[in-house]
């Protein structure tokens, strides 16, 4: 497929390896990937605090950049950013062609599960990984069935993709509780946020995993910061890093 890579600002400037891994994974899978220049931001840092108007120019600029390259789909390795981009484009005062972009956005996990499943055999990775089912991906993008719902468990898209990697043991924390990042919450309510992050790390450690695998770089940044501060024996990885290794 002809894809455009949406690289959220956090990934672009602080975790570029996530974008590099994503690019390489998609190319290895045979897709034609371009990276439209001039991308800005999904706006969520502002819109999560209710500042819709302030964020509009940034979101407009993002749309302009993405519209420059025709594509079948726009893929981003960040669940909360994809959710925010779609929500913001829909509600803001933007031209029709920008609004038409909404249906093209896919977070990487959902793209590789719903749109272009991996057909080929993957190389084995002998590790134990614990899935970080971040809230926006889980509850808003439907990447899994959240524990509140009285539905049969399953439909975990991250699990489905990771299961394709031979010899990989996949676990997850006992609860799908929020990791406590919450955007500016991490700074505004830093005590509660820090406590939530520590509790989440504890749950990951209790699974016996040697790495956390997630689809949301913002949560990973928070959890990675706790792991580093407390010298916890856990690697914090994005899904694309494991896939790149397995392809």
């Amino acid at each position, binding site marked *: 497929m002809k894809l455009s890579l949406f690289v959220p600002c956090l990934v672009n400037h602080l975790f570029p390896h996530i974008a590099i891994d994503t690019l390489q994974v998609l*190319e290895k899978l045979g897709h034609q990937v371009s*990276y439209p220049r001039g991308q*800005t931001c999904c706006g969520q840092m*502002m819109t999560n*605090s*209710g500042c819709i108007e302030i964020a509009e120019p*940034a979101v407009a600029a993002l749309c302009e*950049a993405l519209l420059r390259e025709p594509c079948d789909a726009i893929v981003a390795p960040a669940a909360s950013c994809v959710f925010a981009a779609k929500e913001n484009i829909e509600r803001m005062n933007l031209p029709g062609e920008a609004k038409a972009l909404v249906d093209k956005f896919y977070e990487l996990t959902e793209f590789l599960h719903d749109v272009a499943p991996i057909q080929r055999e993957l190389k084995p990775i002998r590790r134990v990984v614990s899935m970080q089912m971040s809230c926006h991906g889980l509850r808003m993008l439907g990447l899994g069935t959240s524990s*509140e719902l009285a539905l049969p468990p399953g439909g975990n898209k991250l699990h489905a993709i990771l299961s394709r990697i031979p010899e990989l043991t996949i676990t997850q924390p006992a609860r799908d509780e929020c990791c406590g990042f919450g955007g500016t919450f991490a700074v505004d309510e830093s005590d*509660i946020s820090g406590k939530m992050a520590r509790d989440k790390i504890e749950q990951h450690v209790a699974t016996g995993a040697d790495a956390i695998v997630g689809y949301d770089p913002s949560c990973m940044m928070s959890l990675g910061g706790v792991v580093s501060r407390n010298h916890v024996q856990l690697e914090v990885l994005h899904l694309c890093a494991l896939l790149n290794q397995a392809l």
Partner: protein
Amino acid sequence: MAITHAKNAASFVNNEARVNWHSAALLALRDKRDLQAKSVDEWERMREAASQMKLHVLSHLPALLEEFSARCESNGIIVHWARTAMEHNAIVADILQQRGRKKLVKSKSMLTEECHLVPYLEERGIECIETDLGERILQLRGDPPSHIVVPAIHLKKEEIGELFHERLGTEDGASDPTYLTQAARESLRDDFLTADAAMTGVNMAIASEGAFVVCTNEGNADMGAHLPDLHIAVMGMEKIVPDTASAALLMRMLARSAVGQPSTSYNSIFAAPRPGTEIHLVIVDNGRSRRMSDRRHAEIYKCIRCGACINTCPVYRRSGGHSYDYFIPGPIGLAISGDNSEANSEAWACTLCGSCSAICPVKVPLYQTIAYHREQLAHHKHLPYGKNTYMPLVGMVMKSPRRMALAMWLARLGMRLSPKPLLHRLGGGWTKSRDLPPPPRESFEAWYRKHGGVSDGH
């Protein structure tokens, strides 16, 4: 200077042992609720039906209130109308004073908290005794509740033991819950038998029957209502349900959602006073109608006051009910009143994780309403935590890829060059519990430019 929620919560969350205990207590309720929800085959279908039923009620409220009150009156229930909290209090006081009543036993009602009824009555020489055990404990302590269903969840049994030793004469140092509950039973039984008036809340008001339902585990609402010859029931006007089938649906979901029981011990349905006695019902607006005229607020009135959202909220569990400005804490409290706190910070006591909206038995769009409050505050430039100042700057930087690139290049440079202790200090709230990420050498866009758009993925 008004105190932010973060400040209010600090001493609670930083007592790690206590916060772990508090959070575990709430999670135990959440786990029981999950078991119950999963044991009912059609739970998700019931949630959707309950949501639709409540939307029907709210969108037809005046007609349903007319039907309800007319049928109540033909059942012999006397109906009063209160537009405000003050009118509610005045009506209740009037009913009591006209009959010379001095001792009121009351069961739990968040509406009475909302209207500050008890102090109002006490100022007028009417003794008010909370009969729900949790509420009674708080009344004796002089504390407000910290949860709408389990109001004393923040207290340890030793603290309650001390309180009862002082106020009820239990043994010094005794803290066994059964012993303490028995002491409360004996003390309150005396109050039930000597009260000359009783008050209850209303869990559901059935329009087609002119009846109202009161649900308790303790039996305190009934021990109150069936003893003195005067029963005053008070309700928010949104508590209406159209018919008995709707009431049944909510009765099936309420205790399961609240405390993980298939039912409360008592679901008491009142549709007539006992011969020779009176039932008065006060129906209250107090700003509900105004809130309902805003589509993005209106759905909060579907709420059946189960507290499941509060039990699941990771922020509530770690900050405790007393850290909130509003008398109702957690997601439903923020959804009702998040745009109305002194420091404007309540609506940010939330990560927008969505657990609350997912657990709500009537699908109140809780986190969505909290997000709406943030928009309203932003619109009026009433943002907390310095956002009024820095958000416009963020917007200016983020709208320009070049400006962003420069700002982030400087940030990375700063992160690389600054000594750790300085970074730690500049990192503010972040670096209290976390390290900053290691700064990368270059941005992705710089890497991509160098590699000319061809990665070594082929």
